């Protein structure tokens, strides 16, 4: 659906490109936020990505691949933002009592804290594969294309990221359990 707009934008049609940004901007924002965990950084990354895409668009050969190509640009810029802001304040997490009997389709505050902490510990490249896989629902092969990485790299990143998240959840759970035991 985007190909005609890409074609026009590739020829310098600013209105067509604006329409493209309307079409893909929300998804870019969602991706960037989920990688960076910061709305302001995400907006910056998306703006840079879209501007870069405009500049580089003449080099895009397959118009149907616009969105994967854009996502690759975006992911790279997210890596930059994430690394640049690594010195930003670390996690500030409160100890929150567990909430028992939580419905399966909601997160407890404690879940969210654990996940946020675990996610932020991941390198941005691993965050990206989780976002593309779990949020966008892409297969490993698809996310490899979107991220511009070899399939094997995508697989290993996904594996490590998943293990790391699982480990973070388990470690936090163990810590919470030990804390309760000490208090008892």
């Amino acid at each position, binding site marked *: 659906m985007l190909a005609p707009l890409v074609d026009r934008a590739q020829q310098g049609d600013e209105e067509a490109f604006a329409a493209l940004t309307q079409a893909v901007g929300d998804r870019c924002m969602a991706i960037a936020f989920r990688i960076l965990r910061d709305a302001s950084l995400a907006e910056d990354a998306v703006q840079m990505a879209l501007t870069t895409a405009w500049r580089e668009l003449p080099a895009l050969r397959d118009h149907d691949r616009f969105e994967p190509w854009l996502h690759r640009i975006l992911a790279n810029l997210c*890596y930059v933002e994430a690394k640049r802001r690594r010195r930003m304040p670390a996690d500030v997490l409160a100890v929150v009592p567990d909430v028992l009997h939580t419905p399966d389709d909601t997160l407890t505050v404690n879940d969210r804290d654990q996940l946020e902490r675990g996610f932020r510990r991941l390198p941005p490249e691993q965050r990206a594969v989780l976002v593309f896989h779990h949020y966008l629902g892409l297969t490993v092969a698809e996310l490899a294309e979107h991220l511009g990485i070899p399939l094997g790299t995508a697989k290993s990143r996904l594996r490590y990221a998943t293990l790391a998240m699982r480990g973070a959840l388990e470690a936090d759970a163990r810590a919470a359990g030990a804390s309760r035991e000490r208090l008892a």
Partner: protein
Amino acid sequence: MTTRDPQQLLDLFLEEGPAVLPDRVLEAVREDIHRQRQRAVMRPWRFTTMRTYLAAAAVVAVVAIGGGVFLATRGPAPNVGSTPVPSGLPTPAEANGALRPGVTYKLSRMGAAFTFEIPATGPTMVADGVGSRSLRLRPTSLGAITFHDAAALPNNFCHPTGVITRLPGDVQRWLRKGGSDVTVSPTQHLGSVSYWDLTLGPRCYSGEEPPGQPEIYFSAGEHHRVFEIPITGDVSVVAFTWGSGYGGEGDDVLAQLNPLANTLVQSIKPYKR
């Protein structure tokens, strides 16, 4: 303590958060693209359709895009400061004395604010999409200088790994592949730094094709100062002033930008081995 499936928790976690791009960002993108030209692709059918190229020639404001990224020869990443300084806060500084990796400096010499940052360590990617360790000098409205050591350039979406071994002859030859017309000054020196002034003629606009070759974004009438800054025995930083003297900027900008570039280049010297 949660006992639910981590995969399910992760799915739920990633569902949360904003999924709408604010209108102000879309508007900012519109403004950005209106100011920026698209890069040229060396295909015959492109030359006749690059409307933005024609538009760019008439734009008064600086189009701070693209850049040259080259490495004198491949080699280890240059040691431009062994201990990253853990501060990203802007530091009031003129470009003299030691510059420290990881610090953002502000320059107030010109009317527009300049900032530049020396990344701490490792590869990074600057806003123009160039992956490298880099030093950027970016005025907000008057042009830009970008420094790249390019020692670890990824062959990423737009900027390739490229090796240019002889400056500026290679630049000149490469530009001419695209039908460009470049005049290069005799070699000049700032200590051990060599530099050349490039003047681009009326046919000069160059992108890159195919992927994998170095690229520079130039327009007719631009003037550039190109620096080659030896860092180690086999690695040099190549620095381009950027976007000066074309599209109505005039030589007044060039006259300010080049001395500033000279000062910056000299300030890098402490990092040479």
